[in-house]
């Protein structure tokens, strides 16, 4: 579904991602782990079109999408959440969801002024879907609250909700678990499993919560120092000497600290 070929990205003198290649298989929930500064978020942002790579290619569903802007990628079925929640703070919770669906005729000013009936009709349909999503995320009671007033965990939920407003081919989840309480996280994991199983969503997940990774992800890809270190099931990863060294090791610690800076 996503294929990354020899991607590199430098910021100033720092190589955040260094000749990295990996594949996210269709229908999988693929995990991406690694110590801080490994280049996970940079790689995510390149795939999501936030900035282009210095070198290499990104393929989405077989199509070369290297350097495409984020909004075009979305229309090809790539949705994402952010590491630090990017809610639309001065919009209500339900508006955050209603904004998502593409090709709304009311997004043309001309039709908003001269074809209002059609806009209203569409809006009714969107609202039914938005309320379903709110129900699933247990956010119904907050429908008309400003998104900026939600807790950190609720904002994360809302971001997942935005991806559920459409039928994406692949969803990038950037530390979904951060700030979400354990009970809710368990339910979220259940939701991700359901979307993956029943609706065929592919997920690509950055996560620091290893229990969540172990529950959801197969395979798991480990990054360190801008490269893919290894790949396998969580059980395999846990036994892998190189991984343990990357997380805890002394030899690499210095360079990892440099990469972070």
């Amino acid at each position, binding site marked *: 579904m996503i294929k990354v070929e020899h991607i590199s990205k430098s910021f100033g003198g720092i190589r955040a991602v260094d000749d990295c290649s990996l594949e996210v298989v269709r229908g999988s929930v693929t995990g991406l782990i690694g110590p801080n500064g490994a280049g996970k978020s940079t790689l995510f942002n390149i795939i999501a079109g936030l900035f282009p790579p210095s070198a290499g290619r990104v393929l989405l569903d077989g199509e070369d999408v290297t350097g495409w802007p*984020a*909004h075009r990628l979305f229309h090809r079925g790539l949705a994402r959440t*952010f590491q630090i929640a990017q809610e*639309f703070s001065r*919009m209500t919770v339900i*508006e955050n969801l209603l904004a998502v669906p593409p090709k709304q005729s*009311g997004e043309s000013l001309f039709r908003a002024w001269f074809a209002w009936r059609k806009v209203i009709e569409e*809006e009714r349909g969107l609202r039914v879907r938005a309320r379903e999503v709110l129900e699933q995320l247990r956010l119904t009671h907050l429908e008309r609250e400003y998104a900026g007033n939600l807790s950190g965990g609720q904002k994360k939920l809302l971001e997942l909700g935005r991806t559920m407003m459409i039928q994406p081919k692949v969803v990038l989840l950037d530390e979904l678990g951060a700030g979400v309480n354990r009970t809710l996280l368990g339910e979220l994991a259940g939701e991700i499993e359901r979307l993956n199983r029943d609706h065929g969503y592919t997920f690509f997940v950055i996560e620091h919560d290893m229990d969540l990774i172990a529950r959801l992800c197969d395979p798991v890809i480990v990054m360190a120092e801008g490269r893919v270190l290894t790949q396998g099931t969580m059980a395999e990863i846990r036994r892998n000497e190189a991984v343990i060294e990357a997380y805890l090791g002394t030899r690499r610690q210095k360079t990892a600290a440099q990469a972070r800076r």
Partner: protein
Amino acid sequence: MDIFSAGFLNYLIALGTMSGIYAVLCLGLNLQWGFAGLFNAGIAAFFAIGAYAAAILTTPESPNHLGGFGLPVVAAWPVAMLLSGALAWAIGRICLKVQGDYLAMATIGIAEVIRLVIKNEEWLTAGTRGISNIARPFEALPTPWNALAFLGLVAALVAGIYWAAERAWASPWGRALRAIRDSDVAAAAIGKDVTQFRLEAFVLGAMVMALAGALSAHYFKFLGTTATEPMMVTFLVWVMLIVGGSGNNRGAILGAALIWVIWSATELLTNRLPGEWITRTSYIRVLLIGLLLQIVLQRFGKGLLPERPPRMIDDRPKSG
């Protein structure tokens, strides 16, 4: 003072007309700042383009400036708006891909360029001599009906723009813009073409500002370089929108009327100052308005009428 005197009535009509013209400017700025978070620091440029385009296109031939087109007002105003929109489009194409600061700098710069062009290109604008003999609609009517009819025209335009802006606010177009304003990366991640939406809001706002410029030229029947003064246009309009409440179309209109009335009242005040102070009135008035802005913001942080999310389109209240 006899409140039924003709003088007082004229004063009220003048207050209303100017409030209306400023309300048009504020509604235009609200499209850019309130909807889209675009910081336009050169409102005067778009206002002046509208004013000069309308004046040049409608005045009889004159040796002092370009002219002699003799267009009727209804034809000249759309041309004035289109010219201003075209300038906004050109600026926006270059500056809107990046956030905030660049647009502010570019608009300040362009406003200064336009001001100098108007002052120095005398073949076009008559420079500091200004353009006179600008026709005002309805001026053939007897007093005070001529002034009242023009006030009615301004009021009708304010109402029309208000309607269009409210519809835009309630529509998915306005929603997409607010999303972009709150987080442009997240808006891009849900498929919104950030640059395109911003460009639409910026151009539309600039066209509305040009209409205000045209109205003002025809109202005063004379147009000089004061039309490009950042103090009277850019600064005052920003104060109006912030006091009234950015992101709220009613707030924009309220702010325009309120600040204009207060601005006019400070003139009565400063006229009573002793002789040696009279020459200092211009900046004393600005200082007073600045103080007022601070006081209002201390008390009403989001303006007198704060932004509210639009009522959801055709949504029946849920029972229970």
